[in-house]
């Protein structure tokens, strides 16, 4: 048995479901449940997203067969919490390649769902998950040393963030080292942050609104090249929800 959560699912043939599963042991896996949509099946609810399930997969092909699935815990999400859950799923679908086993990420994901279903405040949960995802994808960066030559971050210097590497001193960067960079990265060149602020960000005090705001900016810069020009559709719902309030 393996623990898993359904990220998304589509109707398959007349009575089945094709599942995009995030599993603890095998990463993202596609599997088919042949009769999940038949009238007598109780699997339909078990195989809804945001439910921790125990599963057994069979078959050697690219697409597995779901031999059994039992619900372990459901994380009920409402309104913005629901859109936030969708946001996590969309991030994983976009950025996590299939069959890449990252057990730590699975635990972080389930923890995030648990927090979303329990807490009122969603933003710190989302930012924390975004950062953890970067770490698991080996795209994390240092909060204590710059990405140019590994010098210690100095409180009085302004830095800018280069996605995929980290913080670089703003002045040096502007002169010679990065001339002719890809245009995708020029977006992040607008954002400058002092070494002192970087050190604060590195302590992850996301309950502090000021820190949270800057951390969001940081994550936006880090994810921009990963997501490219195709926007996340769940963000559309989150933004509309903020406007509706």
């Amino acid at each position: 048995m393996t623990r898993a959560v359904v990220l998304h699912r589509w109707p398959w043939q007349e009575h089945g479901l094709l599942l995009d599963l995030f599993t603890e042991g095998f990463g993202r896996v596609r599997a088919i449940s042949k009769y999940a949509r038949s009238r007598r099946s109780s699997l339909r609810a078990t195989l809804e997203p945001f439910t921790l399930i125990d599963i057994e997969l069979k078959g050697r092909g690219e697409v597995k067969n779901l031999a059994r699935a039992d619900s372990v815990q459901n994380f009920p999400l409402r309104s913005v919490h629901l859109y936030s859950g969708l946001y996590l799923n969309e991030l994983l679908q976009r950025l996590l390649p299939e069959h890449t086993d990252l057990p730590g990420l699975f635990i972080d994901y389930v923890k995030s769902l648990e927090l979303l279903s329990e807490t009122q405040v969603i933003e710190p949960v989302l930012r924390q998950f975004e950062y953890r995802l970067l770490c698991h994808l080996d795209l994390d960066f240092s909060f204590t040393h710059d990405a140019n030559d590994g010098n210690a971050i100095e409180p009085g210097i302004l830095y800018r963030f280069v996605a995929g590497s980290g913080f670089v001193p703003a002045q040096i960067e502007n002169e010679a080292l990065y001339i002719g960079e890809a245009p995708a990265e020029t977006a992040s060149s607008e954002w400058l942050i002092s070494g002192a602020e970087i050190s604060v960000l590195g302590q992850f005090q996301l309950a502090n609104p000021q820190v949270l705001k800057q951390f969001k900016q940081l994550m936006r810069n880090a994810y921009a090249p990963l997501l490219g020009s195709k926007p996340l559709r769940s963000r559309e719902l989150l933004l509309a929800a903020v406007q509706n309030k």
Partner: protein
Amino acid sequence: MKAFSPAIAALIESLRILPGVGQKTAQRMAFQLLERHRDGAGKLASALNHALEVVGRCQRCRTLTEGDTCSICDNQARAAEGTVCIVESPADVLAVEQTSQYKGQYFVLMGRLSPLDGIGPADIGLDLLEKRFQDGGINEVILATNPTMEGDTTAHFIADLAARYNINATRIAHGVPVGGELEYVDHTTLGHAFSGRKSL
């Protein structure tokens, strides 16, 4: 090897778009129509053609209908109720109508919000729904979308939209099936049933 003449093959292929119809069933249907029910086949063909010509979407509620608006939207007594029931498909309108419990109007989404499939608010006519909210005359929306993650997402999204126009939003209760036994009901369904409980 070609087993069927082109016309028969095309008919079989066309029948396969129907839900639950595979290759075998499509073949059986095609032979039935061509061998034994040629009159019926003719009627089927012209009925299909006629329906395709005259049936479109209701301009107010988006359900399938002939003419600009459907009979439910045209019914003044139902409009006077001031309630709009939101459903995912025209078949759901029929299902609610058969309960004989609802006397208001409908809005048919023809789908559900599903960001992971790229389906956003505009794709399910929420701009049109918002216009109806703006126009006034609605005091309650009943959210009768399916109890799936997408149905829930859609319901919450519309509830937020309704709140902006001071319209009360309610969600139909989901839970234990009539004639069912608690121990056989899955966690999620039982959870829904608990959160939707009401006093007796």
